[in-house]
C-alpha cells in the first residue's frame, strides 16, 4: 500500500526519521509460512520433511480472515476457493475435509467486546468440521487458534454442545508430520486435548 503511494510513504518516512528509525524502503517482500510451504521450493521441502505422515488423519482447514482478504493486497490465492492449506494437509499425508465456513471469521477480534456475536461466528466452523467428520482442525492464524481452542468451553456453556475438537496450528501439523515430539510442539498448552489425534497417529 505504501509502495503505491509515494506521498504517504514520504510522510511515514519523515516521521520515522524524526524519531530516529531508519526509513522504510519497501524492498522486503512479506511472505507467510502458509504461502512459503504451499508452493514452489518450500512445498518440495515440506514433502521431504513430512516423512512420518499423518496416516490419513481427517483435517479440516480453517484459513482465517486476513490471510485471504482483501485479496487485492494479498493475492496468493482465490479468497473464496483457497487451496493452500488443503495442499499442505495432503503433502503431510492427511485427508483435507471440506466445509463452507473454512473461509469465514472465527469471531476473535470482538470476542471481548461482543462475546455473544463472536461465539455465533465461532460455532459455525467447529460445528461444520465435526459434521464433516474431521479428527482435527488446522489454522495458520494464531488468533484463530486461540479462539477455536480456548473458547470451545464457552461454546459448551452457551449452547450445551461439547465439541472437544482438537485445534492444530499450521506449524504443529507440519511438526507432527515431520516427526517432532509432542513435547516440542507444546500440546500441553492446548485447552482442548490433542491426545485423540496423537493416539490415532501413534505418536
Amino acid at each position, binding site marked *: *500500500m*505504501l*509502495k*503505491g*503511494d509515494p506521498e*504517504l510513504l514520504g*510522510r511515514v518516512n519523515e*516521521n*520515522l526519521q*524524526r*524519531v*530516529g*528509525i531508519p526509513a522504510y524502503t519497501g524492498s522486503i517482500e512479506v511472505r507467510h509460512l502458509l504461502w512459503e510451504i504451499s508452493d514452489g521450493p518450500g512445498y518440495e521441502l515440506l514433502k521431504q520433511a513430512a516423512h512420518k505422515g499423518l496416516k490419513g488423519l481427517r483435517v479440516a482447514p480453517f484459513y482465517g*480472515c*486476513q490471510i*485471504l*482478504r*482483501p*485479496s*487485492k*493486497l494479498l493475492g496468493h490465492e482465490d*479468497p*473464496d476457493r483457497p487451496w493452500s492449506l488443503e495442499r499442505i494437509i495432503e503433502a503431510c499425508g492427511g485427508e483435507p475435509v471440506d466445509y*463452507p465456513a473454512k473461509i*469465514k*471469521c472465527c*469471531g476473535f*477480534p*470482538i470476542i*471481548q*467486546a*461482543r462475546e*455473544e*456475536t*463472536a*461465539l*455465533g*461466528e465461532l460455532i459455525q466452523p467447529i460445528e461444520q468440521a465435526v459434521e464433516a467428520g474431521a479428527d482435527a482442525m488446522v489454522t495458520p492464524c494464531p488468533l484463530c487458534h*486461540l479462539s477455536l481452542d*480456548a473458547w470451545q*468451553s*464457552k461454546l459448551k456453556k452457551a449452547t450445551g454442545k461439547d465439541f472437544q475438537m482438537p485445534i492444530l496450528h499450521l506449524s504443529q501439523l507440519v511438526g507432527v508430520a515431520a516427526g517432532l515430539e509432542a513435547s516440542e510442539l507444546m500440546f*500441553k*498448552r*492446548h*485447552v482442548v486435548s490433542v491426545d485423540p489425534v496423537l493416539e490415532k497417529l501413534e505418536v
Partner: protein
Amino acid sequence: MTEAALNVEARTMRVPIKIWRYDSATGERALKEYVVDAPEWVTLLDVLDIIKDQQDGSLSYRKSCRMMICGSCGMRMDGAAVLACKTRMYDIVQSGHVPVISAMGNLPIVKDLVVDMQPFWDKFHAVKPWLQPGYEEPPDGKEYIVSQERMNPIHKESLCINCGCCVSECNAMESDPEFLGPQALAKAFRFVGDPRDQSDVDRLEDLNSEHGIWECTRCYFCTERCPKGVDPRDSIAKLGAESVKEGIDRDLGAKHAKWFVTSAKTTGWLRETELVPKTQGIVSAIKETRFAMTLALKGKVPPPVPPHVAQDVEESRKLYDLVHEQGRDGAAGIVQGERGIARMEYLHETSGEEPPDADG
C-alpha cells in the same frame, strides 16, 4: 451500434447455469439448471434476461440500469455476492464451471433472487444519511465551497450504490442481525468526514451504540465483495479512530483498541494479560476468573509483572508523541488506502506509467 447488430457480429457460446429458485408463499426451494445460447460478451444479468425471455417467465430478479450504477442486481454467484451486470460469463464458461446463482445473504428472500431490502434501508436511515450543516445559509450568503482535497477522504464512500453486496456476507451480521453493518457504517463515515457537516460528535455517539462500529468482526468480506471499491472496513476503522479522538471511548471495543496503544507506548509490546481487565473492567474480569484460570493453567497467560519492555521502547514512545502532536485532522491526515491500491493497479496495467493527475 444497436444490440441487434452486436448480436449478429458476436460469436455465441453455450452457457449452463444453476439457479436456486424460491417461493416464500409456498416455502418451496429448488436448484434448477438452465442452458442458454448467448453472445460471448454477455453478463450474468444478460443470461438471466435470456432465461426469463425464452425459457421461464416466472424467474424473479431485480434489475434497472444494467451498467453498475443503480445497485439493483446484487445476488450470489457460487456463494459470493456480485452485481449480475458486472459479471462477465465468458471466462466462467471457458473454464467449464457451472455457476450456482442464489439470492444475497443476511436479508429475507422474497422470491428466487429477490430479497427484502427493508432491513437494509432501516439501517441506512438509522445513520441519518443526509447533510446536517448547522447553518441556514452559507457564511457568504451564496454558496459553501469545499476544496477537492477536503472531499477526497470521503470520495470512496460517496461511490456506494446501496447494492447490499457487502451486507450479504457480513459475518458479524450473520451472528447478530441487528448489527448496523458495512453499508450503513460506510455511509455514516461519508457524513462524519464531510467538512460541511456539523454533527460529527452526535453521529459518533450514535455509532458507538451496542450494534455500532465496535461490533464489526474485521472479516473483510465487505471490502472483498464491494463492486465499487468503497472498502467499508476501512471506513469503520476510521470511525473508530475518530470516536477515540473525540473522547468517545466507553465501548469495550474502544477500550480494547486503546490498550494496544498504551501497551505499545509503555513497553513496545502488547501487554496481553492486562487486555481483559483493561477492556472489560475489573468486575467483569473477575467474573471471568475461572476461564482465565483455565488458560493460565495451560501456560497461555504470561505474568504481567514485571512487564516485558522492548529494548528500543524509546522509539515507540517518541513515535506515539509525534503522532499525538500531529493529530489526524484534515484530508491529509486520513490514510487513503484505496487511492494507493488504485495507483498500484494502474501502474501494473500500464507497466509503470504514472496515472494522470486527478486535477487534470
